[in-house]
């Protein structure tokens, strides 16, 4: 398959891994920020192929995992209303709120639908004028353009029955938070290539300068990942602190200007809670006041709904790269994908689910 098979070519990947072996002289801890990268690393077993000096820790870049409990509870409350068609990306359905999930709401008669694009939700709103259609707009910068397009499109169509429940997060503030933590172990970042495809990478040189850590824009296929790792290791070994682009086929410095314009037209920066991490100032996007009519929190008056997370598992430490999933005593025992204790086990992009699905075997396979 074009753009897939050539980036999974075993010989090419092995060649780059050889190069990493030749380059590395001492231990380095790298964090891949994006959940999609975690999934790909574990699915293809890339962590097993790396020289033992390189440790990959998994970052908080799974949008499903970091969506705060409060927002899930708001989603559940809206989805349960008889006048609502609640649309969501698929893997949000299994994320537990305070006492139920969207599957439970659906089983009790709520009209909960999985859509692949928020524009499908706009179409549903057009076709169902007597219903309120709500889209659960979560994600990082990657899903922001389609999510804001759904608002602009329904504005253009004059729809009065479409709104979005926004829980958008951004990568740069998360990186800042991780690097500011006294527990930080991360020495180099693999940046989330798809986020940079939209946003470019002009936001990152100040971070690199402030924290003195190299960052490399990295793609998602095995060859992309090992190239990103190689570049990071090269920079670390040479003592260079800079942003490098190892995903040039998709990412430019400026990014996609029209997409950024659309995002800034509809969204503005705001404080955001991250499940498992806590409040990170100005780390999210929310709707600008002029788009209030598309704001589901206001339309359904759930703004004041408040929920506290309870300390049951180590998801927070995993999301910050302090612990690996199999360090958790509940991993694979009380906590499994069909009975998740934490959000990291729920989403297929979550580190725990990726470990459970692909890595749960013996200690030889999951390298300590």
């Amino acid at each position, binding site marked *: 398959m074009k753009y*897939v098979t050539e980036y999974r070519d*075993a010989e090419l990947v092995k060649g780059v891994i050889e190069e990493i072996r030749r380059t590395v002289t001492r231990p380095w801890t790298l964090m891949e920020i994006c959940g999609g990268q975690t999934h790909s690393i*574990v*699915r*293809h*077993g*890339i962590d*097993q*192929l790396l020289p033992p000096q390189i440790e990959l820790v998994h970052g908080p870049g799974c*949008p499903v995992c970091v969506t705060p409990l409060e927002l899930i509870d708001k989603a559940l409350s809206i989805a349960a209303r008889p006048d609502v068609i609640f649309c969501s*990306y*698929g*893997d*949000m*359905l*299994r*994320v*537990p709120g*305070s*006492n*139920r999930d969207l*599957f*439970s709401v*659906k089983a*009790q008669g709520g009209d909960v639908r*999985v*859509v*692949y694009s928020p524009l499908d939700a706009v179409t549903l709103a057009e076709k169902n004028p007597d219903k309120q259609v709500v889209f659960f707009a979560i*994600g*990082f910068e990657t*899903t922001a353009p389609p999510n804001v397009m759904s608002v602009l499109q329904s504005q253009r169509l004059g729809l009065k029955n479409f709104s979005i429940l926004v829980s958008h997060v951004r990568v740069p503030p998360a990186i800042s*938070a991780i690097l*500011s933590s006294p527990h930080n172990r991360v020495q180099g970042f693999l940046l989330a290539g798809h986020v940079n495809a939209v946003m470019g990478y002009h936001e990152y040189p100040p971070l690199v300068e402030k924290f003195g850590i190299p960052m490399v824009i990295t793609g998602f296929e*095995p060859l992309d990942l090992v190239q990103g790792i190689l570049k990071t290791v090269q920079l670390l070994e040479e003592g260079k602190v800079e942003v490098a682009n190892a995903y040039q086929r998709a990412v430019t410095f400026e990014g996609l200007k029209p997409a950024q314009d659309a995002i800034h037209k509809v969204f503005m920066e705001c404080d955001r809670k991250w499940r*498992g*991490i*806590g*409040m*990170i*100032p100005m780390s999210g996007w929310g709707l600008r006041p002029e788009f209030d009519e598309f704001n589901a929190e206001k339309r359904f008056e759930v703004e004041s709904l408040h929920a506290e*997370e*309870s*300390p*049951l*598992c180590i*998801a*927070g*430490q995993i999301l*910050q790269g302090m612990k690996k999933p199999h360090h958790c005593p509940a991993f694979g025992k009380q906590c*499994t*994908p*069909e*009975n*998740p*204790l934490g959000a990291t086990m729920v*989403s*297929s*992009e979550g580190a725990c689910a990726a470990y459970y699905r692909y890595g*749960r075997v013996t200690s030889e*396979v999951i390298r300590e």
Partner: protein
Amino acid sequence: MNNETVNIEGAVCAPPLTHNEQIVMGHGAGGRMSHQLIQKAFVSAFQNTALNAGDDAALVEPGLRQKLSISTDAHVVSPLFFPGGDIGKLAVCGTVNDVAMLGAKPLYLTAGFILEEGLPMDTLKRVVESMRLAAEEAGVQIVAGDTKVVQKGKADGIYITTAGVGVVREDVNVSGANAKPGDVVVLSGTIGDHGIAVLGARGELGFQSSLLSDVAPLNHLIAAILDVCPNVHVLRDPTRGGLATTLNEIAVQSNVGILLREETIPVHSEVNAACEMLGFDPLYVANEGKLVAIVPKEEAEKVLAVMKSTRYGEGAVVIGEVVAEPKSRVLLKTTLGSTRVVDMLAGEMLPRIC
């Protein structure tokens, strides 16, 4: 932004959800949730040797000259007609295949119809004609049936439950519990065709394809295999939950490990493309016309040859082997040379966000 003020809360996590109180869609997806429901709700209540065996069909010995293989399968599919098949063909093939997977020759089916008020008579006729053709191809007769009509909105057009019975060949002993270390795992062709064809036909996820469902009766393929190798250890069709779930079931039943080689598993390029787009793994996507045969190593070549000579086995390949350890696990050697676990499908298969 002042990063120093960030207060990282530490270990936090949501309370568990078990879905023990009501049925959710995941209970019907064919993965681990389905298994748990079946064990808790049904097997524990009905307890008997044939049921407890956990195979696709039940092996019963009612004091006749031959053993019987009995199975039943309820069919709900949306849309009713999809590229390559329809609910009628599915209802016949599903039960024919389950009965045949014990090494039996399926003979008779029964069919129960639940029809929704308002169903066009023409739709019913088309479904029945499709069942007739599938039964003819499989060489079975539909000898009894039942019809119920429910109010508009209480069903989705038409639901069909079929039951089937067949006679087990005397010289065979096929069960999911019979895989032995050293055996070879043979797959009859590409995986994921049915699941992706139906998903595409639903039109909800915004993609179209020319892909056809693989729905087919496999009893003639099985007869051909057993003719050359009566010593087949396991036969099973990887339907809901996909190849991954089926192999996990076998690994647990036989208390063995199964080691697959990623590059040998055939996947249609359109299935691959759809899975890449949607974040699915073809290993978990449903098939309705494929089987896995686990055979002694020395018999593998002739089994492969005879499968390839049949209509529904021409894409047959060896995809892996049975190993002693780790028990009850399926492992996959990736094309890159690493090894990963292939788990059972958990609940419902969900498209990934990005």
